[in-house]
Each structure stands twice: as structure tokens, then as C-alpha cells.
């Protein structure tokens, strides 16, 4: 420092015009005599914007081709090759970002934070698969989602789970979706992206925990087909709901079902609804009473859920960056060195009072969010219980419109040829 200072003074004595520069910088830029040319500062440009539109185009094309393969061409091979393309393009080439699963959070975040300028590609990645699903079922899940596709190639020895297990585990994605929306709305975190298990493989770069989570899910996927899609994926929840009202869904048989039972175990996901005989119907008075009871307790479940959620809001809120910082500021841990967060906060010169007020309002948001999240979970539990009490008569083997991933495996098992 001192040596440099001495040099600076030398320059000072030589030239006097540098005075203005002093106000800005401690050490003025020297005037070189040797004809030195200053290199330019490296600032490489980001990926061109046009490529984001290309992503959307690729999405549209793959989704259309996949839908055509599934609904019209009825080709499992075609779906498989599209999966491979998806893994290559959306997976390894685009490194898993942007994906539709995560776009749920972008939409939520944009709705609650007016300052966030959401890219068009994010809106389209969210909307396009849902619109396709509304008409053709979950063709997106079948082959276009890189997360689904990478699990799909690991389906070797699928074990048929009991259908009640599927029903119970099928509730987890709803809770996950609720949490993801709550955290995105409060600008806390994008949990779906944070716990995306496969993006690490696509990037060939992951933290240890992420790598292990992905590896476990993939290995599990050898036996329990597509565990993430069925028991975790929050976007799958939306597609599940949309698919239920789809106009033209994949069918196992191209014509009339002949009840040959060949397709019965063909679905690795347990998404084929089997025929239900009338004789299985239970005593009608008992069933009706249960349905009435369940209908009555739905509002109650919503209330209980909401109450629990509201009690739990502080635990939910303590994930928030600001809330954690405020707690640390209030109760500093004397045994630990000051955390970077506290240092940064202090150096930012923000008023403590203001900050505490802001955090109080964040906690308040979580209180309301806790009510809504709890109520939502209560509602889902109630509706599921009700739907499990309804007797649905069914004659043929049909894919369950909600849970069917439109992978087209069952098609190969059907001996019926299409009517010409």
C-alpha cells in the first residue's frame, strides 16, 4: 500500500490534470508511455433470445408428433423414440431448464410479484401441455417431459402396486403442489427446482444430495415405474385433472373391447381401470349413507386442514430468507461468528425497523397461506374419500383418464385390429 502510494505521488508531481479522477478512484488510471493498449473487459453475451422461442417450437412439434403417435398412429415405438429425443434435447442439450414442471412456480411468482417480468417461453411451457392434455390426455407426460422420459427408459421390471397404495400415494403431489405454490407466491423459494432430482444428471453436475436423490429414484424406477411422475410431480397434478375432461384420450383397443384380459397387467403404472361387475355393488343404503356423511365432512376437513395449516405457518415461514435473517438479528447466536446474511444486511444500511415490519408482513402472508394450503389439502382428502365411495360401473378395460400417462404400452397388448 505504502509503496504504491509512493509511486502515485510521483505521478502526482508529474501531472496535474488528474485531479478530477481522484474523486472517483483511489488510484487513477495511469497514462502509459509505452503505447500500451488496454484489453477490453470480457462480457460474453447470453444465449440468444431467439433460441428461447426455438425451445417453444420444439416443444410444440414434439408434443404434436407424440400426440399423433399415441392417438392416431398408436405406436409405442414412436413414443419411445420421441422420449429419446426429449432426453437428448430438453434433457442433456437444454440441461433441464426450462421445463413445464417448474413453470408452475414462474406463473405463481409472476401473479404475486408484479415486478417479475415472466418470459413468454415460461408462460407457453406452462400452458401448452395443459391445453394439449385437455384435448388428448397426458401425451406430454408420455414422451415430451424430460423428467418422465428419463424415468421411462429405466422401467424394466415394473411391479404392480396395490391400487389402494396408488390412491394413497397419489395424494402426495397435491401437497407438494400446494407447498410449491405457497413458496413461489411468497417469493421464498422455487422448491420444485430446488428438489428436481434429475436435472443434475442432465447437467452432469450435481450436489451430492441431488445426485443421490436422482439415483435412488431412477433405481427405484426399475421396479416402481416412474416414481417421480406418479408420487411427486406437482405439474402432473394439473395434467391429471385436465386429462380427466380430455376430449380424445388414448384407448387400449382401437375398436371394441373383447374382454380378453390380455392388457390387464400391461400397464406398469397401474392406470388401467378394470371392469366392475354389478354384483360388486354394496348394499345401497349403506353406500348412500357414507356418501352423505363424507359430503358433510368435506367442509369440516377443509376447516381442520386450514386450522392446522395456520398453526403450522411459522414453521413454513422459517424457510423464508428474510424471516430467518430477522430471527438471527433478533436473537444473535453469540457462540457463532456473525453470519454473512447479518453482515450483508448491516452493510446494506437498511433500516432495521423497516425490515422487521416487512418480515412481520411476510409472516402474515404465511399465516393466510397456511390457512389456504391447509384448507386445500383438507379439501383434496375429502374429495378423494368421497370419490372412493362412489361405485362406478364399468364394462371394459379402459385407461384411467387421470392417472394414465399415455405411454401407449398397453396398445401392443391388444389383439383387436382397427376397424377399417
Amino acid at each position, binding site marked *: 500500500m505504502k509503496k504504491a*502510494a509512493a509511486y502515485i505521488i510521483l505521478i502526482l508531481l508529474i501531472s496535474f490534470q488528474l485531479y478530477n479522477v481522484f474523486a472517483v478512484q*483511489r488510484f487513477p488510471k495511469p497514462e502509459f508511455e509505452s503505447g500500451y493498449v488496454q484489453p477490453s473487459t470480457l462480457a460474453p453475451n447470453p444465449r440468444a433470445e431467439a433460441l428461447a422461442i426455438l425451445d417453444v417450437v420444439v416443444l410444440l412439434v414434439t408434443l404434436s408428433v407424440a400426440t399423433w403417435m399415441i392417438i392416431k398412429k398408436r405406436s409405442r415405438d414412436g413414443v419411445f423414440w420421441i422420449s429419446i429425443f426429449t432426453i437428448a434435447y430438453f434433457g442433456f442439450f437444454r440441461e433441464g431448464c426450462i421445463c413445464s414442471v417448474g413453470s408452475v412456480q414462474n406463473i405463481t411468482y409472476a401473479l404475486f410479484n408484479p415486478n417479475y417480468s415472466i418470459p413468454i417461453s415460461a408462460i407457453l411451457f406452462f400452458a401448452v401441455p395443459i391445453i394439449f392434455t385437455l384435448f388428448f390426455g397426458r401425451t406430454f407426460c408420455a414422451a415430451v417431459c424430460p423428467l418422465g422420459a428419463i424415468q421411462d427408459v429405466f422401467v424394466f421390471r415394473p411391479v404392480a402396486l396395490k391400487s*389402494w397404495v396408488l390412491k394413497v400415494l397419489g395424494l402426495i403431489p397435491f401437497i407438494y403442489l400446494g407447498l410449491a405454490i405457497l413458496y413461489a407466491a411468497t417469493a421464498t423459494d422455487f422448491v420444485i427446482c430446488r428438489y428436481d432430482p434429475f436435472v443434475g444428471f442432465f447437467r*452432469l453436475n450435481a450436489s451430492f444430495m441431488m445426485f443421490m436423490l436422482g*439415483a435412488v429414484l431412477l433405481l427405484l424406477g426399475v421396479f416402481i415405474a416412474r416414481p417421480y411422475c406418479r408420487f411427486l410431480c406437482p405439474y402432473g397434478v394439473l395434467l391429471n385433472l385436465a386429462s380427466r375432461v380430455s376430449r380424445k384420450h388414448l384407448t387400449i383397443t382401437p375398436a371394441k373391447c373383447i374382454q380378453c384380459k390380455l392388457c390387464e397387467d400391461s400397464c406398469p403404472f397401474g392406470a388401467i381401470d378394470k371392469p366392475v361387475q354389478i354384483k360388486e355393488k354394496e348394499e345401497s343404503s349403506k353406500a348412500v349413507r357414507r356418501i352423505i356423511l363424507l359430503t358433510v365432512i368435506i367442509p369440516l376437513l377443509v376447516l381442520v386442514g386450514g386450522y392446522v395449516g395456520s398453526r403450522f405457518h411459522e414453521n413454513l415461514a422459517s424457510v423464508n430468507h428474510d424471516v430467518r435473517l430477522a430471527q438471527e438479528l433478533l436473537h444473535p447466536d453469540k457462540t457463532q461468528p456473525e453470519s454473512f446474511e447479518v453482515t450483508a444486511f448491516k452493510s446494506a*444500511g437498511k433500516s432495521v425497523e423497516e425490515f422487521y415490519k416487512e*418480515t412481520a408482513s411476510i409472516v402474515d402472508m404465511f*399465516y393466510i397461506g397456511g390457512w389456504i394450503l391447509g384448507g386445500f389439502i383438507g379439501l383434496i382428502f375429502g374429495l378423494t374419500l368421497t370419490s*372412493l365411495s362412489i361405485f362406478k360401473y364399468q364394462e371394459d378395460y379402459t385407461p384411467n383418464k387421470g392417472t394414465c400417462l399415455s405411454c401407449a404400452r398397453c396398445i401392443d397388448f391388444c389383439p383387436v385390429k382397427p376397424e377399417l
Partner: protein
Amino acid sequence: MNQALKKYIENVRLWRGVAIVAGVYSFIFCILIIANFTQINRVDPVNTKVINALVERLKENPNDNQLREEIRELDLLARKAYFTNQWQIRNGGYMLMLGVLVLIIALQFIRLATKELPVVSTESSDKLLYTQKTARLWISIGGGILVIVALIFAFLTQSQLKSTFQNAAIASNPEDKGKQEVPVVQEKTEVAKTEPSKVEVVKSTEVVKAENSVNPTQKEVQTQQVVKQVVATGDFPSDNELKSNFPNFRGYAGNGIAYQKNIPTSWDGATGQNILWKVAIPLPGYNSPVIWGDKIFVAGANATKCEVYCFDRNSGKLLWTANADNITDSPVTEPKVQGDTGYSAPTISTDGRRVYAIFANGDILAIDMNGNRVWAKNMGVPQNHYGHSSSLITYKGLVIVEFDSRTNPRVFALNSSTGDEVWSTPRKVKISWSSPILVNTGSRNELMLVAEPSVASYDPATGKQLWSIDCISGEVGPSLAYADGVVFALNEYASLSAIKVGDTPEKLWESSDYLSDVPSPVATDKYLFVVTSYGTVVCYDAKNGTNYWTKEFADGFYSSPIIAEGRIYLMDKQGVMHIFNADKTFTPVGEAKLGEKSVCTPAFANGRIYIRGDKNLYCIGK
């Protein structure tokens, strides 16, 4: 051709073999990668404690070439390991991917070739009613567990976060309230009652009058008087008392003027000529001694201990040591400081009732004249990359602290007898290392501070900013000098400015020829003396900036010059005191060697000079 291909595809044995090989290969790579993963965290070159420790050691013995070689070798090893590891993981990842790819293909082919015909079971396996019933049961159980777990967690960690934060928000802004609650009328009578009983009656009433005329708005007057009341009840010395001692860094009011007489002009540390006593100071510190009566005070600190020492001024006997420990809010870890600032750069201040000291960690304490602690507190750790070095100063029962920290820079005053904060004024400045000075401009007392970008003046009683002028930049180290209505500010790589003080300050002249980054200037009514750290002393005309003389010395200066009896006492880094007349021409009076390096500013008493050397405290007198 097609037939041959088909044969290959359907050769299950072949594919099984491929699958086994690929599986084993992938497994091995997986294990290797995981092993590497754990290793990469161990040899993180960013936080190699070993090398850092070795470098520290090297600093202590700079000639240890073996150690130097060792560091270089270790550094190379660490970096090699780091990058090799990254290379291994990256390439291992590719290899693993390849293996898994082959494995998947093989397994897919096996599956294709060994496809079994679906078995048709005669009885329907899953009964709808059973499924529904079990699902209902488990959903209820799952929901119940969820509710119970959530509630248990919620009640275990219940902390009323929202109201806690709201209360904290209110608690963090208490000042306005306290002031408004005090009734106005009562204060005024209080002020009237207390004032006459105190020293300097005339002066302080004058100040009040001046303030009243300057600040016509009722509210400001009120708040000022509230503060006045607090101040006036304190016990504090008169100006004459302060002048007859040497209570602050750079003397009375911190302005570099000593009012003592019969100051010696020659001594020699080597021969002991005129050295009355010499005593070792236990802990190091770059603060300067201060004097009250027969006592002389210095502070010292290292990373673990902060102490204040009181010596008998006549005998050099250590009278007491006060330890600054067990202070609430004091940080556990000491802040990082640079070697040439240290943990105890700020000089002590005393008002004859108590001694006040501040250390690099922000600990402030008051000790009575017998060494008993009166109060101690920590007002925050100064965020300062060299180390806090602004000295304290007292003003009528207040201890004024210049706290130009990176975060929340401010100046505040503590009640000298209780340590309670009396006022605090935020400052929009960068970190500085300068010390405050107190100035009587004829009409009022002002507290003047300097830091990038401005010189600012405050009412020392209330903390209200009186004026400010932007004229300086950089890491301001030198304090201000004031004489006859003009204040002088300078800093290295910035400029020297002479500012006529007043509500609308005015820059009289400026210069950027000779600047200082450590020693402060000193001024008389006619002349300004600038001392640079690289060894130049310059005399300017205080009013127009004419350069009267420039004198180069062999060694640089860190110590600040003091004017006593019309002479400037200026000590260089080698401990040689240069004494010359504070006049238009350079007339040397004497040159005296201490025989020890020193960067501290000397303290003066009648017939005596006290100098803190690197390790010892010296008393010099005839």
C-alpha cells in the same frame, strides 16, 4: 444383413453379458465419483487453513526459506488436487453416462428378446370394494398423522413470530418517543436552575441564545433543551481545567495545540539525557498518552485482551490497570485489523472525573480515576478493514464517539457518568480513521468531523448537524486542523482544502501538492503546517494557501505535530523529534532522539513531554 442384425439383437446371452459388464463398470465409476466427491470437499483450495497458517508463520520469520518452499509446494499440491479432482469428476461423469447408456440398451434388448406372453388370470385380483375400503382407511390414517405431526411441530416451535417482529420494529426506533414525553415547561425551568450552578455560566447561556436565534422553529429548540438538561446535570471540567491538562488525542479539543510551558527541546534516549523515566507498556497500541493531573493514561490491546493503564506522571509507577472484559454485546471474535492499526488505535479521552476508552471491537468503557469501571458497553462492532481508529473526545458531560463504520456510520454522544446514549446522528460518509475536534467559532461550540465526502460540523450538545461541505475523498486518516474561523482538511489522493466555517461554509483555497494519509495538520491563526507520511513538512499561509516553505526529512511521519510555546514538535517514525518554530520561515530549534521507533503523538505537561514509543512510555523533562 437384416437377418444377421436380428440375430444379434435377439442374442440374449450376448446382451446379458454386456449388461453385466456395463453394470459392473457403471457401479465402479459411480463409487469412484462418490469417493472423489467426498475428497473434493476435503481439499478445497479456497479455504486451505494449512497454507494460511504457514503464511502467517512466514510473516513472523520472513527469512525462513525452507518454510517458503514448503508453502509453494503445498499450494501447488492443493491446486493440482483441486483441478484434477474436477477433471476426474467431469470425465468420470461422461464415462458413467456411457456405461449406463450401454446398460440401458442391453437391458432393453434383453427385455425385447425375453418378452413373455401376458398371463391371463381367471379370477379378478383387485376387488373394487376392498380397494376403496383400504384406500379410505389409509388416507384417513395418513391425514391424521399429517395433522398430528404438523400440530406437534407447530406447538413445539411456537414463537409468535409476527408479533415478535412487530415489537422488534417498534423497539428498534425508540428515540422519538422518549423525547416527546418530557414536558417542555419543566425542562426550561430545569435548565434555568441547573445552569448557574455550573461552570462557564456565561458561555453556555450564550450558546443557548445563539442557538435560539439560529433555529427559530419551536420544536428544534425544545429537543435541544431536553438534551441540554441532560448535559447540564453532569459533572464536567471547565475549559481552563481542560487546557491545563492534556486530555485528548492532540491535546485540549483535539486540535494539536498544547498550552503547557517550559517544554524541553533536547534529550537523548541513548544516553539518558533528560529522560526522567521510562517504563514498558504491557500491551501494544498506537494510541497516544493523555494526561490529567499527576496521572498519565494509555491503552493497549491484542486480539484477546484490551486494557487501560494509569501511570504516575512523576515516577512512572503503574498505578492501575483496567481490563475491558465482560462487556455486554461485545463480539465473541475480534474484528480483523491491519497490523499498522491494531486493536487499540483510538486514543483515550479524560475529563478528570473518568477516563474513556474505545477499542477496535467497539467496546467503550469509562473508568474512574482510581481504576474502577464506571460503565462499559458496546455500540456495535465498527466495520472497518484496517481497524477502528477514531479517538474519543469529551464535551460537557458527554463522551463523543465518531463511528464512521462501513455500516450505519454515525456520531453519537454518551452520558459520561452513566454511558446512556444522549444523542446519535447518522452520517452519510464512508469509513474514516480521523478523530473529532471541538471548536469554538466565537459564537458557538462546534464538533467537526471529516470523512469522505465531507467536512461536517455538529452541535456537540445535541448532535444536530450545523453544516457540511463536500471537499474530500478516499480513506480519510488525518484529522482536521482549525484556527481563526478556518478549518483545514486533507487526505492522500484527494486534496487539501481550507474552509471558512459558518452556516454556509466556503472554500477559501485548495491545493493538492502535498497530502497526508496519516498525520494530521496543525494550524495557527496565520499558518498551516502540513506533514506528510513520506517525510515532507510544508508551511502554507492559512488564509490564501501561499506556500512559504517546504522541508524534506529523511524519515516519514505517522505522529501528528503539536504546537507548544510557538514551536512545532514533530516526531518521525524513527522516534526523532524535530522541533522548529511555527513561523513563516523554517527555523530548526532542536532535534532529539528517543532511541525507539514511535508513531504516537506526544503528550505535554508543564516542563515535560511524554512519548509512547513502540514498547515504552517515556517521560522527558529537565
